[in-house]
């Protein structure tokens, strides 16, 4: 039987439209959600796959790998990605030795692996990473905190690195590492190095951990903690362990995890916030001369609001309520709320997470990486949290407690609270992985900060921020001359349309990782930046006024003019403007 053409033709259109519709289906930003975060991993060319060793013996170190770093290693104006990797552990199936991986950003969310030519493919068991220009040559160096000897990669400035661990003296022995940060403890212009350590684990003392009949990964409580290490930069390419004389081990040993350094009280020196796993956090307060006192308890940073110690994981720092004081957020274990420490400006913090951050997607999971990041450029930092469990055999326990989980995103409600938008924010929040480290940086220089997540035992997630709204923004990079070259520890205050935002340049943040060397400020509808104030670390304060928006400003210590750096993937030559500037200013360094 032949169907009449008046039926066939519409039917054909219907079917064709259906096929085309399904094929090209791309959900669009909803009017309800100011964020639009797209998972673009598959098109980035990134083939990195993380391994934790998965020995089957469930060593504790498998649970805590790893962090990652986003930074512009070659100075081409595009932020690159360095992933840490685990390694083969006793009990593993023999395989190719996993190594860390560096991906060069070629623009347009296209990346090329340059691990081998850059010579940064450490095969140690990677846990934490920090980025800092320890030799003040204008090129960011890499410090990798391993289970086993650590690595310091010196950036040669030509796209390659040299392993200078031995001559620098920073291998830190054979410990289980954690986070790390470069900071200038005494304001001498050289970046020193804080290395957090986790627990006193060894294969020799390993015992299977069985709970309720399940062979599971142990927590840190069954091991002793390990002291952290503070290295002083001697200014000649070497470091010296000053932990004892600086006072950082007098309070005993912790089970270090993520860490961040910040001048919380705006007294001009850098203090150190080290999270401890299932123990009270350490807050090392600097006396300005490089001597530290542990004051976590009186500063309100040791516990949560109810005075409980948490299984603290990753940490970030920002002024989330734009009151001029830096606050902290740190992640924690499943069935614990993370901690949001609001800086009262009176020398102590109040922990307010239970009322400020909804718990629905955080509370059941272990939370790791965390980033204060202004995703919609409205001038108020939002919150991204990476989730996943340590236990890989939970799936039959309860549907909501799983090894893999979705990450979470929260919008700053501008009233001290955050609103969860995970379900509405797009495909970037859809991957279900066991995430660890997370980094926030603008990978395509469009003024909207993107996200990179390291997933345990899996590929990373690259999240493109395609949020609507058209708000303005500005990037600010600092170049220190008398202060350290990266200006780590410097404070930048941006004023635009009546809103004042404060940022600090950090080295080492989130979960044992690094990101955000180039500061980002969302400006909402402001068409000019009224004023930028920089308090250089160890130096004076400088101001710039009436600056353009939607651009990348380079502020050089002592220079009156702000330099506008070009953006975009076209800006990719190695003889870049930054390097030219560095050539001009380097001779003036001290």
């Amino acid at each position, binding site marked *: 039987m032949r169907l009449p053409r008046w039926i066939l033709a519409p039917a054909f259109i219907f079917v064709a439209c259906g096929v085309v519709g399904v094929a090209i289906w791309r959900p669009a930003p909803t009017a309800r959600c100011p964020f639009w975060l797209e998972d673009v991993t598959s098109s980035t060319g990134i083939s990195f796959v993380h391994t934790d060793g998965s020995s089957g013996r469930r060593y504790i170190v498998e649970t805590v790998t790893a962090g990652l770093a986003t930074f512009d290693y070659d100075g081409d104006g595009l932020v690159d990605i360095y992933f840490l990797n685990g390694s083969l552990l006793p009990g593993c199936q023999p395989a190719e030795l996993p190594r860390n991986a560096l991906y060069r950003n070629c623009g347009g969310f296209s990346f090329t692996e340059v691990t081998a030519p850059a010579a940064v493919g450490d095969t140690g068991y990677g846990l934490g990473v920090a980025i800092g220009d320890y030799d003040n040559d204008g090129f960011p160096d890499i410090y990798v905190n391993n289970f086993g000897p650590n690595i310091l990669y010196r950036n040669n400035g030509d796209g390659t690195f040299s392993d200078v661990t031995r001559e620098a003296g920073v291998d830190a022995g054979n410990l289980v590492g954690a986070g790390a940060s470069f900071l200038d403890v005494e304001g001498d212009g050289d970046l020193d190095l804080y290395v957090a350590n986790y627990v006193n684990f060894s294969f020799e003392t390993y015992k299977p951990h069985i709970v*309720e009949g399940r062979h599971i990964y142990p927590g840190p409580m069954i091991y002793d903690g390990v002291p952290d290490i503070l290295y002083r930069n001697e200014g000649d390419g070497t470091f010296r362990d000053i932990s004892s004389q600086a006072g950082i081990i007098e309070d005993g040993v912790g089970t270090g995890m993520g860490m961040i350094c910040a001048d919380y009280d705006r007294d001009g020196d850098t203090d150190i916030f080290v999270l401890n796993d299932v123990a009270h956090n350490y807050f090392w307060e600097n006396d300005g001369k490089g001597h530290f006192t542990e004051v976590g308890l009186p500063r309100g940073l040791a516990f949560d609001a109810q005075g409980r110690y948490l299984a603290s994981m990753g940490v970030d720092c920002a002024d989330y309520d734009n009151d001029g004081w830096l606050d902290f957020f740190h992640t924690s274990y499943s069935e614990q709320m993370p901690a949001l420490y609001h800086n009262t400006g009176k020398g102590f913090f109040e922990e307010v997470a239970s009322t400020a951050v909804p718990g629905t997607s955080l509370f059941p999971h272990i939370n790791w990486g965390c980033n204060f990041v202004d995703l919609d450029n409205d001038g108020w930092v939002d919150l991204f949290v990476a989730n996943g469990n340590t236990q890989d055999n939970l799936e039959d326990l309860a549907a909501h407690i799983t090894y893999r989980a979705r990450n979470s995103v929260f919008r700053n409600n501008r009233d001290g609270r955050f609103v969860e938008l995970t379900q509405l924010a797009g495909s970037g929040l859809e991957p279900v992985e066991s995430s660890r480290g997370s980094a926030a940086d603008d990978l395509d220089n469009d003024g909207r900060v993107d996200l990179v997540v390291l997933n345990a035992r899996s590929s990373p997630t690259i999240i493109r921020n395609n949020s609507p709204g058209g708000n303005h923004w500005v990037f600010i990079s600092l170049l220190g001359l008398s202060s350290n070259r990266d200006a780590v520890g410097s404070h930048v205050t941006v004023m635009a349309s009546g809103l004042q935002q404060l940022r600090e340049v950090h080295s080492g943040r989130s979960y044992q990782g690094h990101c955000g060397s180039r500061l980002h400020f969302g400006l909402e509808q402001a068409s000019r930046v009224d004023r930028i104030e920089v308090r250089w670390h160890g130096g004076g304060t400088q101001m710039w006024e009436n600056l353009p928006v939607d651009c990348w400003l380079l502020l050089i210590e002592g220079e009156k003019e702000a330099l506008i750096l070009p953006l975009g993937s076209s800006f990719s030559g190695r003889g870049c403007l930054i390097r030219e500037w560095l050539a001009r200013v380097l001779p003036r360094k001290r």
Partner: protein
Amino acid sequence: MGDGFVHSRSDEAENGAPELGQVLEHSAAPVAPSPRRLKWLIGVLAIGVVLAAAEYTLLWWLKSAQPAEPAGDEASSASQEVLRPLADRYRGKVGDIQYEALQLADFVLTKWPDDIGALFVRGLILNKFISRDLGVACWQECIRRAPEFAEPYYWLGIDRFKRGEYAEAIDYLDKSIQLGVRLVDARVALGEAYVCVGKPEDAVRVLEEQLIEFPSHPGTHFYLAHALEKCGRLSDAERHYREVIRLQPDNYQAWHGLAMLAQRQGRKEEAAGYFEICRKYQVAFHAGHQEARRRYDDAESLATSLATAYTDVGKLFIDRGQPDEAARMWQRAVAVDKEHRESRLLLTDYYAVRREWPKAAQLLEELCALDPQNLRHRVNAGAAWMAAGNYLKAEEHFRTACEVFPDRAEGYVGLVELALVMGRDVDKAVQLAEKVVQLEPTAEHHFLLARARWAAGKAEDAVQSARRAAELDPGARRYRDLLARLEAAVNKEGAQAGPTSPASQEALR
């Protein structure tokens, strides 16, 4: 044109290709439709467009209507799953203890297939040994069948709380309290959930209500203090933190709360002092926590859980009037876990009711060994041995009770009772009974003193004590009866009335 390059229109023009207008004109000519055919074509196209639009709308709707989580499906499949025996499915996949627990859970299901109390207990067992989701499914089935059954609401509330779903947790916990759950944790969790959703005033209300019933519960005072802080009622918060510290001087969280309050109010030196105390107790607590983690033995822990499961099933039997079956469950609990307290206590009661005193005494011996500082176990052990006729053991326990708790009356009471039963050392018994009254001058203790005095031949003093007992508790008949009998004996036999006289025997009977 097959060279793989894209050629522009101007290229083609240069190459002598026809202009666009020419192409249209040329191609259109042979298929020019008649007006009727054109109408037909437009109509068909319109139908197609409408259908396509409808299709896109449907696609959009399907996409936006997708559930965020597949929880519903999982919940319903789990719900079906829990209504069928499960042990066979897990045979060989779980350890012996877990398998035994599953068999017990299946036993409960088959024994009482339509009983919601049994289904609730099955949920507790599955929750503990297999999966939280299975427990939740049992409890949801319970409230589906019996919406006024309180306990499942509590457990569902706790489950929601652990998922971070505070609003749902509040609904469940509130309902459980309305229905009469008497667990202090229910109100504490409800208060905490209210704080999490930004309603500290409701938390204060709930926790203050709880204090009426449980005025000395440290957790309630602590969370109330926390909620009061959120409400800005700092002095009230401080009062409750101090109450926690009075009840538990080493509660480092309360010291922390007190310190933060002082700091917030600018009392920095005071805060520093509290922080120091907090640090001291926190370090000790952490060390204990760590020690417990290191000592953890999974087989022991599972055995304890299994013993608890048997204990709960025993209670089901008791509620259904089958004490012997209950005892069988508790005996298994006792055998499974050498340190399980509750099953031992329940079994002790069972034996006591049956006057099987040696068995009861033996269990109490075990409880004393487990908790040497537990006065109740110690005194009960003495009483059980006394009832069993083993006075030496009884005396040993009572004396230990007196040594360990010299300011508590219970041990001395035991010794007095023992002396009265044995009929010896009655003068000493009088002294001990006087101490008892001194420590706790209750009606019962005056009654005891009356009996001791009478036994020691101090008739008038005995009457005086009995009178005091009757005065303190006029409603208690036995005090009045004793007083009447002693008075009668004294009246009958005068000052010579004593324990060996006929009147005395009658009075003390």
